[in-house]
């Protein structure tokens, strides 16, 4: 079935509407995945100082325990037929009124379990890493509590069986992200960054809420099963609205254009946080949401195109910003944004793209987390400096970091046989599928994006590890402790191997088939070998350019003036300036005006004038009480005359 011919009303041939069966056996304990890290967070937060000593370790154990439960569930699932791999765990009835009834229920299906694996495994690794990274922080316990809270929320997000429960996780990860970005909020800028992340996310959340409102008004339910079932009977308008609103939500969470502005600032958080939340897991939730809502997007090609367009824009946008950043974390953040753009593009392409999007999501989770941890390791050794212009030549002093980072670098570049090659290339290929203008635009965008990615990631890698040391005088870089390097190594192994383990073997595709169905194969508008060749060429060109500019040449320790584009890219392509001028300033003006209105017009005017005129009237009337008897007599006579006159007039 052709993707772009699909329209409302055509019966679905897909198998995506596999109905979930009640989980039994080990899977019925699936809620433990959420409960364990939640317990960890609760114990650490409520326990207070008493848990300072053993709390971080406890949290880490809880995280691993969640991973273990997840593994158990997957193990049980593999024993089931593909169609039966959708298990539901109903916990309790949560919201219920009138037609609305939402249970707190978990949906354990291949898609959610992929995410569970990614989240718990990478998350646990980062717990371990943090044991080292945060060792000397006075608020370490709180940090681990938040991490556990994040894991729990993220698992709620992916395990939810309805949009509303998903939303709990959705905002839960937002909260965790807020808390962790602002973890060092004694720095007001960091606190602002945290606020920004939360508020921008809220804009997306509004979309999600409204989407749910439309769903409820049209379908009468919010659980995936019902929505998926009734999607075909929804009107086009509703479908398009839901599709776009869900996309808005996804944009907020995944830092997609136009809600991307918060991600760069979010690097204020400790680096493990950036690795976990702002690279590997949370920011991919948008992709998950769209993939999860495939039933809706299948019915509304228009919305899907918008998804793809957003993905394409962000892809390039992130890439351009990434070229200009000198802050290692911000450059990585821009890269994340760009990579998620790829995923968005993929899910925007429809059923043929879902699997690749998820594939890239997983591999990206590994290599990006690995690189972030590497960056953290660098910062650990460089007294928390992040300016790449003062790095350079670190390959000699931080061997492990260097090599693990290199694995990630190669993976993201898409160099065969590293993981990125398998996942990203598939997306580029898929982007070339279709008819009309779309394959050309999306395909070449993806292609060029790959080239730019190669340039800026190489730039990052070379500026940091290669070339001459441009360290400040007080720096004595050193390798990080084992607790940090081991997770890096594990992630590097993933970056190297996940691609060919999951991709060519078809493991992931088969695993996800019950969810996404098996899309018919489509030929891209260009030959696949040609696409691969073009891609690799562009990647090589980008890397070479970077080699000459940032390894062979001298890198200035102060950023050069640069062109207008460079300047704009350094400022995130003026997104903050745009927000400042078009959102914050008007908003501030509005608030000022309203405060003034409230004070002057409503309280001072409506209320004040009323009371004031009452007092004035009182004074005026009181003046008639002038103490003269004759005056009083006159008012009486006047009254009488008026009364009699009134009677006269009345008759």
């Amino acid at each position, binding site marked *: 079935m052709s993707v772009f011919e699909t329209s409302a009303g055509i019966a679905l041939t897909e198998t995506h509407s596999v109905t979930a069966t009640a989980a039994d056996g080990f899977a019925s304990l699936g809620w433990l995945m959420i409960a364990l890290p939640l317990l960890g967070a609760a114990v650490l937060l409520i326990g207070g100082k008493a848990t300072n000593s053993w709390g971080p370790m406890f949290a880490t154990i809880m995280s691993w325990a969640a991973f273990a439960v997840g593994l158990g569930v997957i193990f049980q699932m593999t024993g089931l037929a593909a169609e039966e791999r959708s298990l539901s765990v109903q916990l309790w009835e949560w919201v219920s009124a009138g037609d609305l009834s939402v249970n707190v229920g978990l949906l354990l299906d291949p898609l959610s379990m992929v995410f569970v694996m990614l989240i718990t495994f990478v998350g646990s690794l980062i717990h371990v890493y943090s044991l080292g990274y945060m060792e000397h922080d006075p608020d370490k316990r709180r940090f681990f509590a938040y991490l556990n809270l994040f894991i729990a929320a993220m698992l709620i997000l992916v395990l939810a069986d309805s949009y509303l429960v998903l939303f709990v996780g959705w905002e839960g990860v937002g909260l965790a992200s807020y808390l962790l970005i602002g973890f060092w909020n004694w720095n007001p800028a960091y606190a602002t960054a945290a606020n920004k992340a939360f508020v921008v996310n809220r804009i997306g959340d509004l979309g999600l809420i409204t989407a749910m409102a439309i769903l409820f008004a049209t379908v009468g339910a919010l659980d995936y099963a019902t929505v998926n079932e009734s999607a075909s009977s929804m009107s086009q308008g509703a479908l398009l609205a839901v599709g776009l609103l869900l996309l808005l939500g996804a944009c907020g969470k995944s830092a997609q254009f136009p809600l991307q502005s918060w991600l760069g600032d979010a690097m204020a958080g400790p680096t493990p946080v950036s690795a976990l939340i702002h690279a590997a897991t949370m920011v991919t939730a948008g992709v998950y949401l769209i993939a999860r809502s495939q039933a809706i997007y299948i019915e509304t090609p228009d919305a899907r195109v918008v998804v793809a367009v957003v993905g394409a824009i962000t892809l390039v946008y992130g890439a351009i910003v990434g070229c200009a950043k000198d802050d290692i974390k911000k450059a990585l953040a821009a890269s994340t944004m760009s990579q998620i753009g790829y995923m968005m593009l993929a899910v925007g392409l429809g059923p043929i793209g879902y699997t690749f999007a998820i594939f890239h999501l997983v591999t990206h989770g590994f290599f990006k987390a690995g690189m972030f941890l590497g960056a953290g390791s660098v910062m650990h050794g460089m007294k928390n400096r992040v300016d790449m212009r003062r790095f350079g030549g670190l390959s000699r002093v931080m061997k492990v970091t260097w090599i693990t980072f290199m694995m990630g670098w190669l993976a993201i570049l898409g160099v065969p046989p590293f993981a990125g090659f398998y996942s990203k290339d598939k997306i580029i290929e898929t982007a070339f599928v279709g008819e009309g203008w779309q394959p050309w635009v999306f395909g070449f965008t993806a292609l060029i994006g790959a080239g730019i990615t190669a340039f800026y990631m190489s730039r990052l890698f070379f500026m940091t590890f290669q070339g001459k040391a441009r360290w400040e005088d007080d720096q004595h870089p050193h390798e990080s402790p084992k607790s940090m390097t081991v997770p890096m190594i594990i992630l590097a192994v993933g970056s190297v191997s996940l691609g060919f383990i999951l991709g060519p073997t078809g493991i992931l595709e088969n695993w996800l088939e019950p969810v996404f169905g098996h899309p018919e194969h489509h030929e891209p508008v260009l030959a696949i070998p040609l696409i691969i060749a073009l891609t690799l060429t562009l990647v090589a060109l980008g890397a070479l350019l970077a080699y000459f500019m940032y390894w062979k040449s001298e890198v200035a320790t102060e950023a050069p003036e640069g062109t207008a584009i460079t300047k704009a890219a350094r400022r995130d392509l003026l997104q903050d300036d745009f927000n400042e001028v078009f959102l914050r300033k008007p908003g501030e003006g509005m608030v000022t005006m309203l405060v003034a209105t409230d004070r002057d017009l409503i309280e001072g005017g409506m209320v004040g004038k009323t009371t004031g005129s009452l007092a004035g009237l009182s004074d005026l009337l009181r003046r008639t009480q002038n103490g003269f008897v004759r*005056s009083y007599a*006159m008012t009486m*006579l006047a009254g*009488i*005359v008026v009364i*009699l*006159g009134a009677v*006269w007039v009345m008759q």
Partner: protein
Amino acid sequence: MTGGEATLFWVIAPAMVLGALGLLFAHKAVHAAMSMALVMVSMGVVYIAQQAEFVGVIQIFVYSGAVMMLFLFVVMLVGVDASDSLVETLKGQRLWAYLLAAAFVVVAMAGVASVTFREPVGLAAVQEEGTVTALAREIFERQVFGFEILATLLVISVMGAMVLAHHERLRPVMNQRATSNATVRSMKWLAGKPNPGVYARHNAADTPALLPDGTPTEESVPRVLVARGQVASVTEYAAVTESTDEGNAPNTDLEADSEGEGQS
């Protein structure tokens, strides 16, 4: 209204209005009171003309005779000369008063004018027995309750006037006997105080008498004058009257007496 009555009306009505206007415009309160009396008396005449002889007579006797006299008495007490400035002090009072009065007259008269009265019945029928008898029958058969209750009003007016105008005796009465008893008991000025000085050229209460030794004595001058410092200087007379016999008439201390007496 017969021709005679009409004539009377046209004579007396303007008089009454004039009297009323006199009340309105007279500068002096006395003149106002006299104008008022004119109205009252005329009113009595009108009553009589209207076959209300008893009422008319009472009007003249009681109203003009007693009430108006009471008014006049008070006017006198307050001061006959107290003239009332006709310059208005309250802003707009006069103008508005006239306007309102005019409006009132217009409205009231228009009201009366709009009424079609039935043919007057006249009092001939009810007054067959005689004016006073008929009136008495009316009062004591139908209006007796009002009549009885009016008595209360009279008591009240007496009580009210008493409270505001009656000086209650606060000390025992100082009659002649009590005064002389007191004088004797005090053993002072048993024969009375000396009279003020009486001289050939000068004869006044403010002049102190001279004692046998020629010194003036303040005891002879009324206390009030002493208090006011109006005692005439005695020195200029002292030389001239050196050889004159001083009088020794009893002194009457008016102040002391009048103090306890109310002026009821």
